[in-house]
């Protein structure tokens, strides 16, 4: 069972208190975008075997959305952070590289 800490209200709880919302940091495309951009935004997902950034909602708590960095191989959570950002803050990146040497942000794209 995952244990997550909501960065908005500071409460630490089990995963039943939260709800997963899929991949974080998606670049959204609106009217005027091409088919390829829409296809990428709507359907293709990173789905990594390893470090994954995802959205979570503190459903049975403050109700706010936030982001988490988690490993899909070990279910280890590297940290959570506020959703109002385009990329993970430096302390999250540092926490990941400390445990996964050689890992780089957006090395997949």
């Amino acid at each position, binding site marked *: *069972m*995952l244990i997550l800490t909501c960065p908005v209200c500071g409460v630490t709880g*089990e*995963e*039943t208190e939260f*709800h*997963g919302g*899929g*991949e974080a940091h998606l670049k959204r495309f609106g009217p005027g975008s091409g*088919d*390829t951009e829409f*296809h990428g935004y*709507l*359907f*293709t*997902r*990173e*789905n*990594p*075997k390893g470090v*994954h950034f*995802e959205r979570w909602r503190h459903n049975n708590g403050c109700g706010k959305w936030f982001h988490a960095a*988690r490993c*899909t*191989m*070990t*279910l280890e959570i590297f940290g959570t952070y506020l959703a109002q950002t385009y990329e993970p803050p430096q302390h999250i990146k540092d926490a990941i590289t400390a445990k996964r040497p050689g890992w780089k942000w957006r090395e*997949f794209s």
Partner: protein
Amino acid sequence: MKRYSAFAIAREAFRNHMGWGRAWASPEPRKKYDVIIIGAGGHGLATAYYLGRNFGITNVAVLEKGWLGGGNTGRNTTIIRSNYLQDPSAAIYEKARGLYETLSQDLNYNVMFSPRGVMMLAQTQHEVRGYERTAHANALQGVKTEFIGPDKVKQLVPIINIDGPRYPVLGALWQARGGTARHDAVAWGYARACSNMGMHIIQKCEVTGVRQEAGKVVGVDTTRGAIDCDKLGMVVAGHAGHVAGMAGFRLPVESVALQALVSEPIKPCMDVVVMANTVHGYMSQSDKGEMVIGGGTDGYNNYTQRGGFHHIEETVRALVETFPMIARLKMLRQWGGIVDVTGDRSPIIGPTPLENCFINCGWGTGGFKSIPGSGWGFAELMAKGHSPLTEAFGLNRFYEGRFIDESVAAGVAH
């Protein structure tokens, strides 16, 4: 390979069963094959089998990183049905169900197909309308299903509580020729038949890279050395995204954990498969007497082959309401598999951006039932370049917006 028969059993009985050989060979990999299939699960082995049987292509290797049938083939709840709403789905699942009927004879291997009937309970008015619609659609597709009332449900499943407090049983979609099969035997039977045709099944051989030249696939790198091939088929379920990444393309797939569990064995009490999609649980009784129970997927990406305990609790809580007698059962084992889920809950079978490289994935939570049909269609696609069974399931359907939407069709539990 010796044929399995009553005569063979009698003969072996007279010599202390010393004459049974291995069911399949474990050869060293050759330098090159005509076709390499990545993944020796049910779908991969079925593909290899029909490549040989239907198209005479036998210079085939099936590579498996773990052991044969050790992924989702050995981790499902063995339900076989074809009562889907959309035409392409009904076609491929009904093809599979039809092949299951005679699979034991085809393979000379008892896969214990048991067409005991599959019942999908309608527990809300919405579901009643949905399943009546599916029954009409199935009639047009040539899939034999019917919508039955609560009395018939109670008659077929005496242990069910049809006037549950929250979700009374209002009827059910009934497929009399759906059922279950022995999941391991399906993989083992195909493996034995493939090995008998001279194909190589190479276990403990993990693919670490896909080699390409000028946009064409030329081979794979593995933990047992590089192997060349003319055509490559990726049939790796939960790891589809991972293997596709090696070939340089991304998939509209996310990998999540799906769990199942079995109870302690009890006397025969339910001889059909019951699925309750509103409360989200499904149950059947195995030949050993265990109640086999499955539920929904966990809500986040996961490669660990295990899921959250609270999910089991939700599934069992839901089923106890519909089957009060299982409340006192002890649960014996629980396991999880990594399923590859697509946006429209339909599989992806088709060519890839890499020439001569084909993919069969995205079966999500419903792969076991489709093994023979998937193998049949994918083999035809790999051998001839197109197959009427699979053409609607191409990777390009997401780009073009031609979904085969089973996620809102309620024909599928997920």
